[in-house]
């Protein structure tokens, strides 16, 4: 993609964001209800949070839990996917366990874990890993099913040693699905961290939202939500940037 094409793409995306905020502002002005404060008020609140430095503590707590939980879930999920695609029996043995994990509502898991392990950082990290791992695992497993066995035959015919097959063939094949699964998985991790905080943590973004909610401070609630979304957008962009760097073909 050329720079000018990318610029065009970005301007379109930026325009859509501006439109969303504009629509919000107009809706808030016409409806004039406490349930939807105007964008300007919310962003002013957010600005205040950032200026006072109050935004960073909760953001950092949530981010740390998310990153650690996601990293663990991603590693386990990728390992599971590779194993399940390689060993049929392992796949059959674990298939339903993984499906059950995917089907179980996240909230139930959160309750169960908070009750069983208690309110520790460790609980949230394990929880995130548990939610993310099956999703990444099945994604990688299914992506590997598309691997062309003819390529394997080619590598065997040319006597390519295992380590070069891994670095030159399997890994490059896996990188795009790993990045895609990673993006979805990271968003999922955020949401789990957020929910877990709402239900049982005295810190983090989720906790802040809960507090503002309890005193009916909708502008405050939306300000925290905006912080959450802005951070997600930034991380998503970062991931896409990395993807473009790594996947050059």
């Amino acid at each position: 993609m050329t720079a000018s094409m990318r610029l065009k793409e970005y301007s379109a995306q930026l325009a859509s964001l501006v439109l969303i905020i504009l629509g919000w502002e107009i809706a808030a002005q016409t409806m004039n209800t406490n349930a939807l404060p105007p964008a300007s008020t919310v962003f002013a609140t957010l600005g205040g949070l950032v200026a006072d430095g109050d935004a960073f503590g909760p953001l950092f707590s949530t981010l740390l839990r998310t990153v650690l939980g996601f990293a663990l879930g991603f590693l386990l999920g990728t390992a599971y996917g590779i194993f399940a695609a390689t060993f049929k029996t392992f796949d059959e043995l674990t298939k339903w366990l993984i499906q059950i994990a995917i089907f179980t509502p996240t909230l139930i898991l959160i309750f169960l874990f908070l009750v069983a392990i208690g309110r520790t950082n460790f609980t949230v990290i394990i929880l995130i890993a548990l939610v993310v791992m099956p999703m990444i695992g099945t994604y990688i497993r299914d992506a590997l099913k598309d691997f062309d066995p003819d390529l394997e035959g080619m590598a065997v015919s040319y006597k390519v040693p295992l380590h070069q097959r891994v670095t030159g063939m399997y890994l490059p094949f896996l990188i795009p699905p790993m990045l895609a699964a990673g993006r979805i998985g990271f968003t999922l991790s955020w949401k789990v961290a957020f929910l877990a905080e709402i239900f049982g943590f005295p810190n983090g973004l989720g906790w802040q939202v809960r507090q503002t909610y309890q005193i009916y401070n909708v502008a405050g609630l939306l300000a925290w939500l905006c912080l959450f979304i802005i951070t997600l957008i930034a991380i998503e962009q970062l991931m896409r940037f990395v993807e473009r760097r790594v996947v050059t073909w």
Partner: protein
Amino acid sequence: MTVKVSLRDLHLAFPGRDGAGDKVIYENLNLDIDEGSFTVLLGPSGCGKSTLLNITNGLLKPTSASGIIVDGNDLRDQPEMSRKMAYVFQGARLLRWKTLAQNAEFGLAGLNVQPKEKWQGLMEKYFSAVGLKDYMNHYPHQVSGGMQQRASIVRAWVNEPEILLMDEPFSHLDEITAATMRRILIDLWRQDETRRTIIFVTHDIAEAAQMASDIVMLTPAPSSICYRRKVDMPWPRAMESDEVIDLEKELRRAFSEKAGIRF
């Protein structure tokens, strides 16, 4: 003449599907391929030509065989014998995340062609030969299907193997490019001081007549050799020359008489 590759008493059957009986591909097939020959395996679709190359390359184990001999050694006891070969597959089988040159290098590294310093020169020589010098650093999706096929030919040739296995390498090319590629292949093969053994699969009678020093004709499966002849005609052979056309006629006649295929 020395025999380079010899298949002895080859049997192969694939298990039948849904309770059908086994599908027999070869029953007691014997085939000797002379060193330095340009042997063309000619046969109808589905008769087991690709399968024969796979067995020769050690990629597929036959149901039984008393010998799969390369340079006097049985491939099953000495798998490293297959390092003498490079295989041009029926499809291009390129890695889409590697450039054409990197794809060729993947093969060079696998077959461990030494010294490594030679690689760049080898690649330039063969990519130039097939008219892809300017596309070496392109990814497969950036070039046409025919160019991908030619790149896969280079991946085999750069190894300068003693034995080249080529499975319908030109059948996906347009007739004009195919004609050029046939001429290039023959030239490269004849210029080499150590003449390589080429086992070339095709179902194209004209192509066989134009290129082969030795023609092996196969019947539909269960496949057997129904006709075989050496061709003592100098290259380059003009497609429209009387000798080539007579040979084509002879091959068609052999197909209808020996394999029951009518044209």
